[in-house]
């Protein structure tokens, strides 16, 4: 199915299916990820998009930045919407009314995916539609002005978890949605960032190729919400991976692979310190919060390592049997 080699030279010859002229902020991580996804796909894509920055900024009537069939219905239901589209595709294909191979992708922000769209996502995955759900996770409800979501990292200053004199930002850790999606037992689940474009595009191709539902969680920096300069999207994504705040991993038919292990895991403060949303954590009285941030990262990373080791041990046992 996929033919274009994942090399910049060949990819740069492909048409951009999300055109320039959209009105996402300069330096926004989301459109970088989306364009990589579209470049990775070598089959026609029909997309659904949840309400959020990506949706409002790409389709301001009478313009549309999308060169593919695209539908936005509401905020909490990109998964349900695309499942209807995919069901119609199957119906029409069965009746011989349509012959093309088409793939289906839903895009949602973290708010539209971890929170309000969680039920519809879970339902669509359980029903087994042949769809890919992509969450671009910028860690807050950015479109409505940086409110905390369940994807917002511990300690972050948002407009509904403000760093005040009594409460120092968001008190709860992030929901681990990628793991929750893996627990759905669907054929493909992955986590990546646009800074790791080859990793991202390989994962998109795998997700499109598997029969049945796939989920990809993509860290997508938002300079407005992260309070960073507009040239930080790629650098901050790299730091997220180097600190193991956002490990690159995938589940293929339930089997975990960690796609990248930093030779030297950087302390999480390296990721936190460039971002204004964590600035308050660096005042002396909040040192314990920084420590806790590190503990949260370590806990998740070590659990991943243990799980991967378990899979490897299983496989070795199997091999010995042969």
């Amino acid at each position, binding site marked *: 199915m996929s033919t274009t080699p994942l090399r910049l030279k060949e990819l740069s010859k492909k048409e951009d299916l999300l055109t320039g002229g959209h009105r996402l902020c300069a330096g926004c991580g989301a459109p970088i990820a989306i364009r990589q996804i579209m470049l990775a796909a070598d089959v*026609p894509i*029909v997309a*659904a998009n949840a309400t959020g920055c990506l*949706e*409002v900024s790409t*389709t*301001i*009537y*009478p313009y*549309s930045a*999308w*060169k*593919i*069939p*695209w*539908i*936005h*219905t*509401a905020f*909490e*239901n990109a*998964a*349900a*919407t*695309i*499942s*209807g*589209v*995919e*069901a*119609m*595709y*199957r*119906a*029409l294909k*069965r*009746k011989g009314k*349509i012959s*093309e191979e*088409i793939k289906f992708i839903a895009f949602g922000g973290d708010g539209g995916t971890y929170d309000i769209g969680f*039920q*519809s996502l*879970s*339902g*669509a995955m*359980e*029903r087994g539609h042949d769809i890919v759900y992509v969450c671009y996770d910028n860690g807050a409800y950015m479109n409505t002005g940086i409110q905390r979501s369940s994807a917002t990292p511990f300690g972050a200053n948002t407009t509904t978890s403000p760093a005040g004199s009594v409460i120092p930002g968001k008190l709860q850790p992030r929901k681990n949605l990628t793991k929750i999606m893996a627990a759905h037992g669907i054929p493909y689940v992955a986590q990546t960032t646009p800074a790791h474009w080859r990793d991202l595009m390989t994962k998109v191709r795998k997700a499109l190729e598997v029969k049945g539902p796939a989920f990809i969680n993509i860290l997508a920096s938002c300079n407005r919400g992260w309070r960073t300069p507009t040239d930080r999207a790629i650098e901050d994504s790299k730091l997220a991976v180097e600190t193991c705040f956002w490990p690159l991993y995938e589940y293929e038919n339930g089997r975990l692979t960690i796609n990248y292990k930093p030779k030297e895991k950087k302390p999480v403060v390296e990721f936190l310190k460039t971002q204004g949303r964590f600035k308050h954590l660096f005042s002396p009285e909040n040192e314990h919060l920084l420590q806790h941030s590190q503990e949260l990262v370590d806990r998740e990373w070590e659990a991943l390592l243990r799980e991967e080791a378990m899979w490897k041990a299983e496989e070795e046992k199997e091999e010995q049997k042969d």
Partner: protein
Amino acid sequence: MGKVLAVTGNQAIAEAMRQINPDVCAAYPITPSTEVMQRFASFVANGKVDTELVTVESEHSAMSACIGASAAGGRVMTATSSQGLALMWEMLHIASGMRLPVVMTLVNRALSAPINIHGDHSDGMGARDCGWIQLWSENAQEAYDNLIQAIRIAEHDDVRLPAMVCLDGFIISHSIESMTFLPDEVVRDFIGEFRPKHPLLDVNNPVTYGPLVLPDYFMEFKRQQHEAMLKAKDVVLQVAEEFEKVSGRSYGLFEAYRLDDAELAIVVLNSAAGTCKDVVDEYRDRGVKVGLLKPRLFRPFPYKEVAEALSGAKVIGVLDRAESFGGFGPMYMEIASAMMSNGTNPVMIDKIYGLGGRDFMPEHAAQLIDELKEILDTGKVKLYKDYLGVRE
């Protein structure tokens, strides 16, 4: 002609859906409409239809999936009641705003709280302004006939709007009556093939559905939606005319029952109209000039035609099976608007009845006619809005 069978209202609806054989259906259970999608699921499981059944995890997702499927380019149906419709509310507006001809059965049921599973019209009336065509049905036969016609109306080129067909929960959905079915091929030919417009699945001609429309264009969208809705009225009549040719059953915008020379008129929707018609006959036998109007098409509301039909009436009693707390019932407000724009000025009273499935008995209809007569004789109105069949 087709078969005569004794069936429940839900069975009649499921049978119409089998004959329509839509491309995609979404299903989520809720009393009293559950049986419709349950029966339909067995048609799918037994190969009686070619439909893709999407067994969603909520009604919000049901309508979302219907919207996605319809925009993709095929025929789409579902059914719900009460809380289910309430949960869909956000998506009802989106289906109509996108001009998608989804057809849904609404088995009318009261809205919580307190929770109640029985029939009243608060669900359908709550969806009045969602941009859906609404056809209301007195019995299983009308529900069946309306559903088949709704496909043609919704998909008509002048219209392209979603449509809902309403029937009373339990009173009709669960009681057995005898009715006539059309042969499968007659239904198939009557509805014809679905003609997609700007389908999402046409990957060679990509379209954007659901863009952000700001104040510079928003009103033009809404104006077009309103105009499509107005055109639906003529389409309803055209489709009814064609339907009569294949079924022998005639439908209009409403049913006028013994209304021609009536001084007193009752306006009532759905199953209670049957009860009222019997009582109207009794009063007619006694020489009381009373008639009845039963709206069929509630959205778009045929103001002019309704007002003309009621123009001879001096006193009108409107029966509302839904509340607008602190206001007049929804049907009363439509009839008042109709009479006002017609320049006739009858005395009009509103009776709230049958909430949460409370029985509407012949004596309630008689009580209403007696009151209308008293108003005609004395010119005095006690209360413009009151409850009928309620404990004090």
